[in-house]
């Protein structure tokens, strides 16, 4: 069993118009920049995929990665907890112009909904958002005298994930706080596509330290020297940039 694919273009080849795509990362940490840029490349070459629903904690920063994906016009709807950022101009402009949909979800609920999608739990109750605007229209129930809001699972057609080390069977480790949503999204997508800084043979990761077991991963591509969103933005990078 070898889940590695040859290049980034092959890795993102399964993403089609109208799909729901989870993208790992919290701010720049753990954001799979190269996979996102490969998807933009395909869109620029072919006009597809477009009309995507993106699930991420944020709405991107600057003009690279997720922000560039939105800027390219490929995104119909964003599901996230914090679509404001230091340089929010891309999403903000589209949102205020009514050209992109937003489903705002509290961060912990977002994480739990994704985990629920991966774990076969169609709905759960949380105290979070009870009595607030974000609970509107959602069922409420009382348990042990306290009110809770019912939330539904979130699933995706594809997840784009950034890992530190992957083995050929798709077992993964992450780096520091770049872990964040990545392991959850691996669980909740029909096809999980991983960019890893290092790909090793099966057995190259100690079974005790595997964070994402390979069963949750379908494709692995090595990106040996991944870009960091924060560095790109400090350099005022723009993707795809001037030809």
């Amino acid at each position, binding site marked *: *069993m070898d889940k590695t694919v040859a290049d980034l273009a092959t890795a993102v080849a399964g993403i089609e118009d109208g799909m729901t795509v989870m993208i790992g990362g919290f701010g720049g940490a753990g954001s799979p920049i190269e996979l996102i840029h490969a998807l933009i490349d395909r869109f620029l070459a072919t006009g597809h995929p477009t009309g995507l629903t993106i699930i991420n904690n944020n709405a991107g920063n600057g003009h690279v990665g997720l922000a560039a994906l939105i800027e390219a016009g490929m995104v119909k709807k964003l599901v996230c907890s914090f679509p404001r950022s230091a340089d929010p101009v891309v999403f903000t402009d589209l949102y205020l112009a009514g050209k992109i949909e937003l489903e705002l979800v509290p961060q912990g609920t977002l994480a739990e909904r994704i*985990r629920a*999608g*991966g*774990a*076969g*739990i169609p709905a759960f109750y949380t105290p979070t958002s009870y009595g607030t605007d974000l609970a509107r229209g959602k069922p409420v129930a009382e348990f042990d005298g306290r009110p809770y809001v019912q939330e539904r699972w979130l699933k995706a057609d594809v997840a784009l994930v950034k890992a530190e080390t992957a*083995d*050929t*069977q798709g*077992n993964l480790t992450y780096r520091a706080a770049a872990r964040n949503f990545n392991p959850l999204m691996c*669980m909740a997508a029909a096809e999980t596509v991983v960019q890893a800084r290092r790909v090793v*043979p*099966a*057995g190259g*990761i100690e*079974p*005790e330290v*595997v964070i994402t*077991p*390979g*069963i*949750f991963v379908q494709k692995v591509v090595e990106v040996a020297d991944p870009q960091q969103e924060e560095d790109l933005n400090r350099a005022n990078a723009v993707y795809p940039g001037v030809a």
Partner: protein
Amino acid sequence: MAAKLTNNQIAWRAAQDIHDGAYVNLGIGFPEKVAQYQPPGREAIFHTENGILNFGEAPPSGEEDWDLINAGKRAVTLKPGSAFFHHADSFAMVRGGHLDVAILGAYEVAENGDLANWSTGPKGVPAVGGAMDLVHGAKRVAVITDHVTKDGKPKLLQRCSLPLTGVGCVTRVYTSLAVIDIEGGRFVLREKLAVLSLDELQAVTGAELHVASPVADLIVPEL
């Protein structure tokens, strides 16, 4: 009706349907035998509820590590690419639809896909383990079983009489006499032992066997 497959042969037949790269959970006991009969060139990855992916066969006697056991509490070994995880993650794999196939034993299977395999009734201590979780979530839930009970009664029925493990969950049954799919609330016969007529098979089956396409001979090696 002397001719029937041994348990090893039933396990062998079930193993032939496991595709290369499949993630598989084998119920404890008889279904564990399926692992021995993986066709050459195909690699299945076995999951055990208690937190291991990609475990291998039992170690030699005396070399057991009792922290390295399967759901049946038997000592196992690891293959390259194995991973440990806790019980909630393990059942996320089960319930979340990440397993390609689960192969379980059965007391009874009904033509509507219902399975009874955890309780023989109100007597004794009830124990369910992971059976009720396994019948949900795996992309394909198959049963391996003798075609009839020890005293010759059908195990394939119109409706289960014993307490259910799951509702409408089984899609294929490998028995000592036949391979039968469950489709649209009916038993559809796919393969049967050549020595057995359809009538003979029907006579030991508790619900109607339908024939949708040519019935193949159920051929297995000596094991």
